[in-house]
């Protein structure tokens, strides 16, 4: 399931819903991305996440479908927020469930790695010296690259 929303989400509620009523699930893996306070860049006081409505949902659905084709998964949940967020705020939740832990853990890592290089989101950071668009990192490209087939 894909959700792109401005509102915050409750991790406990979301994870509970993902396994509710399915006793075949043996493992649930999750990743939560948070806004970091980057003191070395003049203290990020907030960031605004912009996205491309329409394309975002399509690309996330495609990433979910790719994960389901590679691992035997029961549930897949991707929630990604947009709008203005402050340090400590949740940005993204990725969770997967499967009969076995390896499928859940690996697919969760795959989803966040691919999401970071394929889903059309951009971060504008606000700091002491004004605003700046976050530059894409080569380390993120390399993280996604290792899942290529």
């Amino acid at each position, binding site marked *: 399931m894909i959700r792109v929303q401005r509102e915050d989400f409750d991790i406990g509620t979301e994870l509970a819903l993902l396994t509710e009523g399915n006793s075949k699930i043996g493992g649930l893996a999750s990743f939560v*991305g948070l806004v970091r306070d980057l003191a070395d860049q003049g203290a990020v006081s907030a960031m605004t*996440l912009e996205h491309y409505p329409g394309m975002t949902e399509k690309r996330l659905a495609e990433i979910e479908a790719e994960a389901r084709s590679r691992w035997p998964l029961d549930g897949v949940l991707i929630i990604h927020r947009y709008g203005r967020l402050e340090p400590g705020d949740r940005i993204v939740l990725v969770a997967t469930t499967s009969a076995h832990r390896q499928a859940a853990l690996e697919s969760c890592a795959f989803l966040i790695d691919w999401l*970071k290089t*394929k889903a*059309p*989101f951009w971060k504008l950071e606000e700091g002491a010296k004004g605003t700046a668009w*976050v530059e894409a990192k080569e380390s993120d490209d390399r993280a996604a690259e290792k899942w290529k087939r």
Partner: protein
Amino acid sequence: MKLLYFAWVRTNIGKAEEELVAPDHVQTVEGLLDWLATLGPQYAAALDRRNVIKVAINHEYVEHDHPVRPDDEIALFPPVTGG
């Protein structure tokens, strides 16, 4: 064609979207970027780092040699930084 701009492409050009009729010689994404860069200094600035600009046509990523058509929705943006 409908053009959409995101992140620093949008802030440099100064608008989020516009409808444009490209001249007939604009056949590919590369040709489109060349033509857009002539529309004014803000376009030239936005497209200065040409090689890093990502392009999506009708919500699908395409390379710069991909053809463009008059009824396409074409989005131009920097590498993505979500997650």
